[in-house]
């Protein structure tokens, strides 16, 4: 663990130098612990793959007191197991009708579209971080077989709810957005929802599984084909 200055009133804690489930679990354990302190002087606590940024109240802490505080608090944190956490099932309509790159992913893997769907929907994914767009959760890792590089040139507009793959990561676009990920399906599940008190059903500690549904079910859920 390494604490570094980020800005005049924020520090960043690094837990490792590569992406791994083990390092991510450390991040999640420390994040959960820091949140549980309910310290009003922590203005933002932002976890990512290997790090946590803390923006603190400059009138309550300075660089030396925050460093001492964090070092002391984090000394005895044990790695929690997050696999028993809340599992969210995301109903997904996988089809070339809405999955513009489903064929590309299948060709790249040299397998059938049906196999791509089966492989993508059979795994439980961990959330590694949320960002880029509000509610955009970076999920990993997809099975090695369907690892697919980003598109050479990003699309100007990807429809909200698009389920996508980039390298070993997968995600759902929470709103219409430009983007370069491979689109394989679409969902009506809301990753960013202003009617929810905490804005999103997903956080870094949740897990996600995709559930293939038929076109009829997707339409019945309010899904749209055209864009």
């Amino acid at each position, binding site marked *: 663990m390494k604490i570094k*200055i980020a800005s005049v009133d924020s520090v960043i804690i690094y837990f490792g130098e590569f992406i791994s489930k083990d390092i991510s679990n450390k991040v999640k354990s420390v994040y959960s612990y820091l949140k549980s302190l309910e310290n009003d002087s922590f203005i933002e*606590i932002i976890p990512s793959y290997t790090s946590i940024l803390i923006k603190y109240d400059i009138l309550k802490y300075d660089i030396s007191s925050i460093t001492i505080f964090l070092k002391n608090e984090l000394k005895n944190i044990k790695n929690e197991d997050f696999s028993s956490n809340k599992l969210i099932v995301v109903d997904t309509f996988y089809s070339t009708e809405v999955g513009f790159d489903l064929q590309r992913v299948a060709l790249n893997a040299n397998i059938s579209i049906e196999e791509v769907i089966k492989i993508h929907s059979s795994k439980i994914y961990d959330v590694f971080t949320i960002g880029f767009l509000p509610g*955009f959760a970076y999920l990993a890792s997809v099975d090695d077989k369907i690892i697919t590089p980003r598109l050479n040139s990003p699309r100007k507009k990807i429809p909200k709810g698009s389920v996508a793959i980039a390298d070993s990561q997968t995600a759902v676009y929470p709103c219409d957005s430009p983007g370069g990920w491979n689109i394989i399906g679409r969902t009506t599940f809301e990753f960013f929802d202003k009617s929810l008190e905490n804005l999103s059903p997903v956080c870094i500690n949740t897990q996600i599984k995709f559930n293939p549904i038929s076109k009829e079910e997707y339409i019945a859920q309010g899904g749209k084909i055209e864009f």
Partner: protein
Amino acid sequence: MSFKVLNSAFLTLIQDSGRFSYSHLGVTNSGFMDEYAAFACNKLLDNDIKGNLLEISFPNLHLEATKDTTLAFTGAFCELFINDEQKNTWCSHQVKKGDSIRIGSFKSGQRVYLGVKNGFILKKEFGSFSTTLKEGFGKILEKNSILDFEEFKGTKTKKWHKNYLPQYGNDLTLRVILSYQEDTFSNEAKELFFNNKYKITSDFNRMACKLDGKEIKSNINGVISEAISYGSIQIPNDGKPIILLKEAQTIGGYPKIGSVLSIDCFKLAQMKIGGTVNFKEISINQAQEKLKKFYSTFLS
């Protein structure tokens, strides 16, 4: 009915000090681009310094008061007319029902703050009044819309002390705290960075300010995406620095050489495209002293 918007200037936004505690979901902080001018505006009205204001970035805003109140204007120096009579900014003014308030051209600076006694009556969304258009939060002022406030029959007006008035020029020194991946920049790269002027490009908005000038390179191509703080200086692959501002995305993967002291980001918010900046190193301890002083002065 309180303010009737007779003519709305492009991108006039409701702002306050920002939306906090949702960054872990990718929600940006948003908030006043220039906290010095914004806090001063609220101070002139004896409002909470973090209270809501209009952030005006383009000329020709025209309002009609439909209640008595006291208004304050700070930020960019601009033409201000109340019932066609020219008035000064960086002070408060009493207005009566039916008065016309018009902001004309800007002489220096880029953002005017307009506040009303006790703030505008609006609903907070997730703890803040701040407008972030890309996230669909807050309010943009449109022609013929109404902006509500409580009636207030004040008797006194205030003026910001002339010794504390800002000067908005075309050249600015930004103090930088070396941080994040600073150790991946060679001494030569740092020398280039600190000894050259950079020009503000047209890629300058509430999210970020892209600069043009001597290219600098990190020894690494990118970092594993991590959270970005306000003022962070990203160095993308083209070597041209980007300073992240109030609506920056919450995580990113470019190497960062350091972060601009927030007080200087507030000054940057008033700069024009084509203006120049240079960077000067400041220690974390000095930087924290300056920022503490900044906030304690306003809170006192």
